[in-house]
């Protein structure tokens, strides 16, 4: 169902992106060149996949700080399997399996043992990073990369789209169906918004929380696979750059669209990537990017906070009426 309010939010979002893009374009005409837009979409693909996975965890109102560590482990597993001469499909699946295996540790700790969801993921993150050093004592792995075909994941095109973006779109469609058109999606939202009432409605809340963490871990590893494919090497710090943009994308999307969802996360990611790309073009040093992302994240959380977002919503509601 597409409500009038959603259309207004969508128009507001498009206007916002257009304004931001317009500003960058006036500063540097290259911003809207085909090459740059492709670069932007590639960047968005990596960040978007991690953010999509995180969306599930945020929907069940948990908090996952571990996925960057899990992603590093996934990257090293993938690199090691490729270096050992495994076929690409096995290597990629092995990387994803590392994510699927590690995510549930958080879920079990949070849902079954009722441990605090801030501390446990921090520990899991450390654990995953620790394991990721096993393969090569921390040096980056790139043997066999040219032969294996992993670089194709970055370079090839499908239906005119760059492979990474096509993968993001495919993942978004699957994610959309699961979260918004399936019974499991209902379960995820019900679990997050009122766990007791969900349990009393027969929803397997603990299983869904574990599943959310597993999805988050797997998507982080899929995201890192693309990053490994574009850089041509796997290293133990690969996952670190995922944390802030993923959180910022999910919260920014939720603030813009009223609640976390697949569409909201994609919108949030598009906005983050546009800004980061634009600042890079303006030759603002890359080390400021974390500061920019963090500023946006704080603004987004403030808007997502019920008190502030209540205010935000009444503003939108007023606009609804006048419109």
């Amino acid at each position, binding site marked *: 169902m597409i409500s009038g309010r959603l259309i207004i939010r969508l128009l507001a979002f498009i206007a916002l992106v257009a304004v931001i893009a317009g500003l960058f374009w006036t500063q540097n005409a290259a911003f809207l060149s085909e090459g740059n837009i492709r670069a932007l979409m590639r960047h968005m693909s990596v960040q978007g996949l991690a953010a999509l996975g995180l969306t599930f965890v945020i929907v069940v109102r948990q908090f996952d700080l571990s996925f960057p560590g899990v992603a590093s482990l996934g990257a090293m597993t993938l690199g090691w399997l490729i270096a050992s001469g495994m076929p690409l499909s096995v290597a990629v699946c092995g990387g994803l399996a590392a994510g699927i295996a590690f995510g549930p540790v958080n879920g079990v700790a949070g849902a079954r043992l009722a441990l605090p969801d801030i501390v446990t993921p921090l520990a899991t993150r450390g654990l995953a990073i620790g394991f990721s050093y096993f393969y090569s004592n921390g040096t980056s792995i790139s043997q066999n990369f040219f032969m294996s075909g992993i670089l194709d994941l970055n370079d090839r095109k499908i239906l005119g789209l760059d492979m990474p973006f096509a993968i993001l779109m495919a993942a978004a469609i699957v994610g959309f169906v699961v979260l918004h*058109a399936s019974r499991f999606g209902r379960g995820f939202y019900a679990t997050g918004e*009122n766990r007791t009432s969900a349990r*009393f409605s027969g929803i397997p809340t603990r299983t869904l929380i574990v599943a959310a963490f597993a999805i988050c871990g797997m998507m982080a590893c899929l995201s890192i696979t693309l990053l490994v494919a574009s850089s041509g090497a796997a290293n133990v710090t690969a996952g670190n750059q995922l944390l802030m943009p993923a959180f910022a994308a999910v919260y920014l999307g939720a603030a813009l669209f009223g609640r976390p969802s697949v569409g909201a996360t994609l919108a949030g990611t598009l906005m983050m990537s546009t800004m980061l790309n634009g600042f890079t073009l303006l030759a603002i040093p890359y080390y400021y990017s974390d500061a920019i992302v963090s500023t946006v994240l704080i603004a987004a959380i403030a808007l997502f906070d019920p008190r502030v977002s209540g205010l935000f919503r009444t503003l939108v509601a007023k606009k609804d009426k006048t419109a």
Partner: protein
Amino acid sequence: MAGQTGTILAMRGIQKRFGDVNALDDVDFCLGEGEVHALLGVNGAGKSTLIKILSGVYSKDGGTIEIAGKAYDLGSPRAAIEAGVAVVQQHPELVGDLTGAENIFLGHESAKPGLFSRIDRSGIAARAQAMLSRFPIDIDLGRRVADMPAVDREIVAILHALRLENARILILDEPTSTLTEREKASLFSMMKTLKAAGIAIIYITHRLEEVFEIADAFTVFRGGRNVATHTVKEAREKKISIPNLMLDSDKGLTFPPRSQKTDGDIVLEAKNLSAEGLFRNVSFAARKGEILGIFGLVGSGVDELSKALFGVVAPNSGEIHLKGRAVRFRSAAQALQAGIFLVPGDRRSEGLTMDEDVVFNTTLANLGRASLGGILRFGDNRKQAAALAAKVDLQPPKLDRALRGFSGGNQQKVVIAKGLYRQAEVYIFVEPTVGVDIGARSKIYSLMREISRDAAVIVISSDCDEVHGVADRTVALYKGAPIGAPDRATTRDQLLSAGIMGEMTA
């Protein structure tokens, strides 16, 4: 108005509009010194709006307010407090980890407040005890509020509201909604002491019998207007029917006729069911075609019993039989699967997803039916939800509205619609009409009767009249143990004394 003494509060011609809705339309309301004045009306009649204007939460659009002869504007909660208006909310926000005494003086810990003044714990305890000693009640103010029974918390909240010595008007918003019959007595004795000290009390309640117990006068609101103000004496002498004043029609609270059927199949049977420290030796059989009523005060174990039947609380001994077979549920999901649906006592925290809409909530307990191969059947879900909304008479019938936007009675109707969508064989209703106005109550009772035609219905409540009025066979639970066995012949007074004193007199 009512009091022989002076008028402490006079509100005249009060107007308040929200968008197109006239929440209050030319309302007059007067309060005598030392008067207990009950404020009555169905949900949405305007009583909360009046209270919010008086306590400075809303600003009025028109009219005047005089307190003790002086005109006030009451533009903010602070202004209201300074004018002597003290409010105790329906669910007082106390700090669970602090003691009762610390809660009373929260924000006023020090007699001479400064940035670095130390919190004087023994001083606070002494001041709190001094406040309490003015009342003929004794509670332990040194206990953590989280460990206190509901009535003690209510008393702490009242003392907190009265911590400033200037309070002249005390507003109590449904203070008895979470109290047992016995606990009510302490609250009422506290109110009497306040009254004797000249403090006027505005008392909001849904329980009409309390008006005659504690109030001097009452005002009935309907559709944003003051439709009647009477002294309780007048009402007694002239036999004025308050339910008739509250409702547009002449109909008060009605219970549907009892079932004549006594030989329906036994669907759910409890045999000597016990859960340590909660309830013991509970036996009953719930039959298709009738309503079984269990009356028990808060804390008597009735809520836990309902959860044991629903697989949430694990019983230590005894058996549950469903259609003749012994069952043991490990989770609510298993109980639902077996055909049991619980309409929980706390619908906001246990029954509904408040930020989601009617369709979401209606279908949540039966996602298997709501989907095909895991994919939601949006069109069908909406159609079914619309049909069920019509069946339970949801007002307004807006399927896209979040549950938060409905009144208590209509939220409860959505929980019932959710149960109907589940198509269960046993429906357990716990406190089905707490916070529900009279109009919706009658509807909920008739729905329960209708459901009982095809399923076994069990109603569990701390409202004796409700259990006796709606159920065919009744039994009381007292301190965890059943008094007697479910019987059609139990009278209302027998049931009441069984549930309150543990013996069936009369």
